[in-house]
């Protein structure tokens, strides 16, 4: 039909994108200059004039000094592990690695069957818990109130996804039920939780639930927060699944019935695999958002990465180096969130290609 456009060289392509008109060229130059200036400032402060080692902390006070990374050198254990006992940090590290490995492995399509995914996540989660708590492995027990830093963030994240995903599926199924009361209860719960800020839900779990429940049902604060956070995740994820259900033609249900499959059989063999597929990009997006949102638990009084960072520059000689600490923590979050997000975009593109 249409002839292929003539091949153009790199130079010409650049010219078309950056310098189509004089105004275009001017805009490009101004912004490139601005970016270069910003980059230079960052490199000058963060690398060229920076002080790196904890022993050199005195140099940070000199006027010419840039970033004082000494604080990270001196305090990185506090930032990464929180109040976890110093001698047991290897346990916290291995536990964090177990969670990261779980997340990385579940990005591989080979694991995308219900049984493999569930076993993988339960295995990863159990490894984490056994290592962090330690009492079942015969090591010194470390109770949850000592868990902190990056390990705590990963723990919150993985338990919320692990508990919230099946709950979300359950809520989505309830919302599609033929039974009006079941539908009503699910819709009310989903809409209620979705209109509240996450912080309100978590705060209620931390502060109000102890008043509502008899003593023997309360559990640790961290578990109450995880359950409330999972409920929040489940209510959003239920809507993601609902979108997946809506993308499936009703012929698929009828096909299942025609094959003589029962309701649950056709659901699990025919419908759900397609729902998961349709819902995959939105689900990854939800997982990324959840990772980011875990940062608010500092307000409820958990010692997460942000809290341990504030503790790191909160005392002694380090008060002036808040900026370095925040940049360090921001880079950690950014690395995790960007890689998850990139993966989500990759999956979305793959699925778009498959459709053609």
């Amino acid at each position, binding site marked *: 039909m249409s002839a292929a456009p003539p091949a153009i060289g790199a130079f010409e392509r*650049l010219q078309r*994108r*950056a310098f*189509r008109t004089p105004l*275009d060229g001017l*805009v*490009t*130059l*101004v*912004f*490139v200059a*601005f*970016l270069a200036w910003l980059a230079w400032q960052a490199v000058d402060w963060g690398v060229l004039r920076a002080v790196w080692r904890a022993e050199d902390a005195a140099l940070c006070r000199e006027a010419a000094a840039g970033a004082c990374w000494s604080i990270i050198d001196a305090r990185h254990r506090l930032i990464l592990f929180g109040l976890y006992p110093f001698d047991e940090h290897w346990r916290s590290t291995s536990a964090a690695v177990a969670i990261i490995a779980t997340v990385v492995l579940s990005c591989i399509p080979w694991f995308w069957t219900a049984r493999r995914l569930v076993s993988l996540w339960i295995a990863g989660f159990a490894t984490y818990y056994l290592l962090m708590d330690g009492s079942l492995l015969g090591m010194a027990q470390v109770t949850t109130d000592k868990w902190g830093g990056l390990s705590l963030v990963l723990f919150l994240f993985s338990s919320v996804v692990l508990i919230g995903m099946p709950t979300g599926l359950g809520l989505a199924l309830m919302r599609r039920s*033929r*039974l*009006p*009361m*079941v539908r009503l*209860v699910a819709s009310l719960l989903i809409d*209620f939780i979705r*209109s*509240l*800020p*996450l*912080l*309100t839900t978590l*705060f*209620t779990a931390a*502060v*109000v639930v*102890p*008043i*509502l*429940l*008899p003593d023997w049902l309360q559990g640790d604060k961290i578990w109450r927060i995880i359950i409330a956070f999972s409920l929040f995740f489940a209510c959003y994820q239920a809507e993601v699944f609902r979108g997946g259900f809506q993308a499936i033609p009703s012929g698929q249900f009828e096909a299942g019935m025609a094959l003589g499959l029962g309701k649950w059989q056709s659901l699990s063999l025919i419908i759900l695999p397609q729902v998961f597929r349709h819902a995959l990009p939105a689900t990854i997006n939800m997982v990324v958002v959840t990772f*980011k*949102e*875990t*940062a*608010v638990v*500092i*307000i409820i009084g958990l010692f997460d990465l*942000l809290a341990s960072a*504030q503790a790191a520059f909160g005392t002694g000689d380090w008060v002036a180096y*808040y*900026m370095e600490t*925040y940049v360090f*923590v*921001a880079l950690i*979050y*950014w690395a995790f*969130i*960007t890689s998850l*997000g990139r993966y989500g975009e990759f999956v979305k593109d793959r699925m778009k290609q498959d459709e053609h």
Partner: protein
Amino acid sequence: MLGWRDFHRMRAREIAIQVGLVLLVLFIVIGSVRSAQVNLAALGITSGYSFLDRATGWSYSFSLLERSIDDPYARTLLIGFLNTIFVGSTSIALATILGFAIGTMRDSRNLGLQVISSIYIQIFRNIPLILQVVFLYALLIHFPGPRQAHSIADAIFMSNRGIMVPVLSMPLGVVAGVVLGSVLLGIGSARHAGSARRALAVWLAGTAALFVAAAFLFTPESQNMVSYPELKGLRFVGGLSLSVELVAMIVGVVLYGAAYIGEVVRGGLAEVPKGLREAGESLGLGTFAVWWTIRMPMALRSIIPPLGNQWIFIMKATTVGVAIGFSDLFYIVSTSITQSGQTLELIAILMGAFLLVNFALAQAVNWLNARLALKGYGA
């Protein structure tokens, strides 16, 4: 085959499931309330809303209204609610403007604009909001004191006490009146002006006229029309003082929200068929005219629903201000709980307020969506 007997049995099972579920919900609700009554009675707290008339006895960082530590809880909570609405709606307005700019830049054919806007989105969208807000707050409180404040043209001063800007010296009530008038004018012109462009022009001109008129009529005799901040001793007098908490809060939420809105806008623009742009260009329209009269109106239809979700998100996101001590509704409620112990009542107020705000925002978005719907497209 299904006989009527099977049908009957299935109905019975379904009814049993539903009755069981309702009983379970009732059990949880009634059980919690009973347990709460026992636990609260043990703490010596009388339930009910009579505490709303008691004076609070504590102060907080920011208020739009006159306040004192003798205010009753009801007024303090109202101030918190107004603060949430104020910060939320200001952030929504600014984030929407910035987000449309970022999204349009992402969509532009110019390499420089594309690169800078995608770097912006990569940074601000991929770092937790609360981290950005506490970071900004830390930067602002480490500004020099008022005596060494950074100044811009001797009119705007930035110090660790906040940012001082010049302001029209009108009473606060008049400002509120002008804002209300501007909102009414906006609604009126949107209904009657015919085209979006004319509506915008009428609204902008009308609002400016209202401001100038109010400034002439209501400036107190003893003062200049514009009040500039001035350093007197250790502090600034005159002008308008934007507290560190307020600035960190609004700037943080706006930068974060704009990154999300930018992606929404880019997505909307990408969905407009390419042929429309080419048609516009072949009619001789310039880049801006094609964007403003063809692509944006088309894109808005797919932008508005996710944009509404972002607005609701921003309104809820203002709760992170508690991390830097900004006195939004969440902050006021949690302080009230520690001070008065009326946990259940205060949580009910907090939840009720957010349900109300979300409902109102969702209605507004639905209304906007219905007005913009293309005739003959979709449902």
